[in-house]
């Protein structure tokens, strides 16, 4: 009886979380549209091709991609009820996610140091709003993963923890999907000097 209730609860929670992710997609869609419209309006500032450090962006992308893989491996370990393996993969996920976040903060700091903050032009406002919102999601995901690691360490695989881990993996994969589009349509199109 209890197990049946857990399955039903798990199904409902995951479906609800999926709905949240879909609405978040629309939020990002609006930011993408704003960015696409404003990207040329640099108010006399340098173009994106001059600003972006492409090898760094590739490193960021690979870091996030690896962390999304390890988030998946973490789920597999959880299905096999392997607590140590779970914690190791979760730790690796946090490490790669944190590396991604650090590189992003570094990029932002460099842009601001060059006088290209969100205040300098409409194009930069659009850029910081879009990439910054994604970064904020990553930060929330990192906090979530840390809490998850502590809770699983203390209480083991309870039904609630298993649900949380699945939702976290879903969230993390979703952020990687959003990043593909930022990588392609912000960085790659920007570096090729636009349309």
């Amino acid at each position: 009886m209890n197990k049946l209730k857990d399955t039903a609860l798990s199904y409902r929670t995951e479906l609800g979380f999926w709905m949240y992710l879909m609405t978040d997609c629309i939020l990002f869609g609006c930011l993408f549209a704003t960015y696409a419209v404003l990207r040329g309006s640099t108010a006399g500032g340098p173009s994106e091709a001059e600003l972006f450090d492409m090898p760094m962006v590739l490193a960021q992308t690979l870091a996030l991609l690896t962390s999304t893989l390890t988030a998946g491996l973490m789920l597999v370990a959880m299905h096999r009820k392997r607590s140590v393996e779970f914690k190791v993969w979760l730790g690796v996920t946090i490490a790669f996610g944190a590396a991604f976040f650090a590189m992003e903060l570094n990029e932002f700091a460099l842009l601001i140091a060059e006088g290209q903050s969100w205040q300098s032009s409409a194009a930069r406002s659009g850029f910081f709003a879009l990439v910054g919102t994604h970064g904020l999601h990553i930060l929330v995901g990192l906090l979530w993963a840390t809490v998850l690691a502590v809770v699983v360490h203390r209480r083991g695989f309870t039904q609630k923890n298993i649900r949380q881990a699945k939702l976290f993996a879903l969230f993390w994969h979703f952020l990687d999907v959003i990043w593909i589009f930022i990588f392609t349509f912000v960085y790659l199109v920007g570096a090729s000097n636009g349309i």
Partner: protein
Amino acid sequence: MEYKSSAYQIYMKYLVGFTLSVLITFGSYFLVVNKLADGYMLLIMLFILAFSQLFVQLLFFLHLGEEKKPRLRVQAFTFMFIILVIIVGGSIWVMHHLNYNMMNFTSEQKEHYMMTQRDKGF
């Protein structure tokens, strides 16, 4: 998430999805960095690569379409996708066709345009 497959199959799925994603990422990266294409050709190729990676990740990481009927997740995703096409495609389309055509102007051209408009008295 009710998996139909065993842990080993899920494991393999993640590895295959990851490999494909890395390949597509490198493909689009070197397309731009080594200037293998330009203009609309490049844009179309990047578009195709980005969307193929979207589908790889949806199938291999987010396990879309693996649930039992009624497939509420697939339905929600499809609806969201239609809304996105309208919002993003529509915004870009409309803004691109405005008289005050901001998107294709460099800052000098825009300044020139603004000046001529001002001289005309708007």
